[in-house]
């Protein structure tokens, strides 16, 4: 067996597939299917594309219901479950807070309470009217986005796509969200590095994966610092405050979409993060504000 690597850009990330296979044409065909599906999900759900489902739903906020297909309904159903188990911390309507939290503005500044107060009425997943056929955002200006789910969902689908084409040993990595299909040939695990939250090119730890997924959420993806205090892109949906309890949370779970949403919720959950992660029966490695590590996934020495 030979290991084939495919690198590609999608979802504003550098991505790769590592697939073990006997026949290059078979492996290549599986990779093409997987990559095409990733691009399909990006085109369908990207909020940066005017023709996406997400944009259509957001454009109709305050107006008529927008018909949706079964896949979109399934994603909304998963988002609803995340909202419920997180006590509302995971809220796919919270993206509007980015209007106040502008991470590109120079010089950066922390939004005022009144700026945030003007937006918080638009953050309310429970107000969204939806069923399996249609969704309606009831207030003009409301938005949803599938951040924290969409890319991770694409990882799982890409892995399934390869596995169903007979590839029993492989790895999918979309911008650091990873899923492996089985161990490497011979039974050795895949070693996946976890990025150090304060050092760009250093690994904090490495995790051995025989099966399943690893996803990380951190305060280093988009942020600014004022007076040595870091404000990151993960915003509490009710207070509008930036998450600051953890520098990063990495989670392993059978599915990447679970690992990703658990990591995001944990970042927002402050001191309740460990209780939450334990309740979801996932393993994790968390780095607190002082750089200390916690959790069952201990850094390799």
């Amino acid at each position, binding site marked *: 067996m030979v290991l084939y690597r495919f690198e590609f850009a999608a979802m504003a990330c550098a991505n790769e597939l590592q697939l073990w296979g006997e026949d290059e044409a078979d492996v290549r065909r599986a990779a093409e*299917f997987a990559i095409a599906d990733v691009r399909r999900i990006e085109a369908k759900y990207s909020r940066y594309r005017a023709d996406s489902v997400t944009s259509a739903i957001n454009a109709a906020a305050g107006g*008529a*219901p*927008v*018909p*949706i*297909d*079964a*896949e979109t309904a*399934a*994603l909304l*159903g*998963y988002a609803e*479950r*995340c*909202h*419920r*188990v*997180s*006590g*509302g*911390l995971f*809220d796919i309507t919270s993206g509007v807070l980015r209007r106040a939290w502008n991470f590109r503005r120079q010089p950066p500044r922390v939004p005022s309470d009144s700026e945030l107060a003007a937006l918080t009425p638009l953050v*309310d*997943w*429970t*107000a969204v009217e939806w069923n399996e*056929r*249609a969704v309606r955002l009831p207030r003009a200006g409301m938005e949803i986005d599938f951040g924290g789910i969409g890319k991770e*969902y694409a990882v*799982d*689908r890409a892995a*399934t*796509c390869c*596995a*169903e084409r007979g590839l029993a040993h492989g790895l999918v990595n979309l911008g650091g969200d990873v899923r492996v299909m089985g161990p490497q040939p011979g039974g050795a695990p895949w070693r996946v590095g976890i990025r150090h939250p304060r050092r760009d090119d250093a690994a904090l730890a490495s995790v051995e994966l025989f099966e399943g997924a690893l996803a990380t959420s951190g305060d280093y993806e988009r942020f600014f610092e004022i007076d040595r205090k870091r404000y990151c892109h993960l915003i*509490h*949906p*009710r*207070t509008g405050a930036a998450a600051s309890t953890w520098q990063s949370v990495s989670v392993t*779970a*059978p*599915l990447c*979409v*679970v690992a990703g*949403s*658990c990591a995001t*919720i944990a970042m*927002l*959950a*402050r*001191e*309740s*993060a460990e*209780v*939450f992660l334990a*309740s*979801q*029966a996932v393993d994790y490695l968390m780095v607190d504000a002082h750089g200390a590590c916690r959790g069952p996934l201990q850094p390799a020495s």
Partner: protein
Amino acid sequence: MAADRAPDGAVLSATSGALLAAALALPGVAPGLAMAQAAPEQGVIALKYLDYRDWQPGEARMRVRAPALYVLKPLSDSVAVEGSLVYDSVSGASPLYFNTLSGASGIGITEYRTAGDIKVTKYFNRMAIGVGGAASSERDYLSRAASLDVRVFSDDRNRTYAFGIGGENDRIDSVNGIAVGQRRHTVDVLLGVTQVLSAQAIIQSNLAYSAGHGYYSDPYKLLDTRPDRRRTLAWLTRYHQHLPGIDATVKVSYRYLHDSFGSTSHTAEIAWVQPVPRGFTVTPSLRYATQSAADFYFDPPFPAGHVPGALYTADTRLAAFGAITPGLKLAADLGGGWSADVKLEVYRQRSSWRLFSDGSPGIAPLSARWIQAGIAKVF
């Protein structure tokens, strides 16, 4: 709002692994899980009651009362079994041959029929395979059938290919002794494709071919002699369009049918499914059918120079006519998994309503009405 009740930053976590269970409902996130999406997750039990009667001018003809029971039960994530049982009682005479013999028919008896079928479907990752059997029994007629159908789903699940094959064996022993131990064997093949065009539109096209040989004549009709082979080709296309603005669905269908008896029919139907407040759905429908007569159908009077044993029928079902069937269905969601519906259809057949050509001149207008009421529970 649930989130308001949670203290800031606190997490209300429910059962262990709740998110993993929810994530498994997403399509295609794990190999082999898509089958759980395709297989029915809930069982259904339904009781239906059909009351049919037809009549011709001045004369009530036939009445059918048929209670039916339907059960669908998932046995596991990937296997479902469904079956139905129907018990008919048929009373009265079948439709008149033609005007001039109207006094000769109608002996007023009641016949009973018991029929049942069962089908087991196994859902795989990209396909579903169903195996079924059916039997129907009445005093002068016994029928047994078996079927195999395969459905193959595309990667994105927006297209389904269907392939089916079935066989049927019938035995006819008419009570009047005209047909004794007569048999009929039929093989059917079906090819179909269903394509989801958008979130609002779906189209399906099926081609069905059946070939049979054996006894096709009607032993209760005078001198009725039909070919001992029959080939039938049916092409059915259905299109459903959802109209989100008014939450309605329009269903249109067209069926072309040609058989080796020489009859060709065209059937077009439109139905409007309109949900209305309080959980009700109203569905008005209209169906139009036109057919040409079988090659051996003869209009009255009885053909001069008829050779005994030559092909001949005066069965008005094989005549040329047009028919219009308006219908209205009312369905109600009663909550708790219960639903009920009632449907009325009125059928009117006239030889003058045939399209493309003249209808058979000798047949009296036939009218019929169906009332069907049902109650179902999802469990």
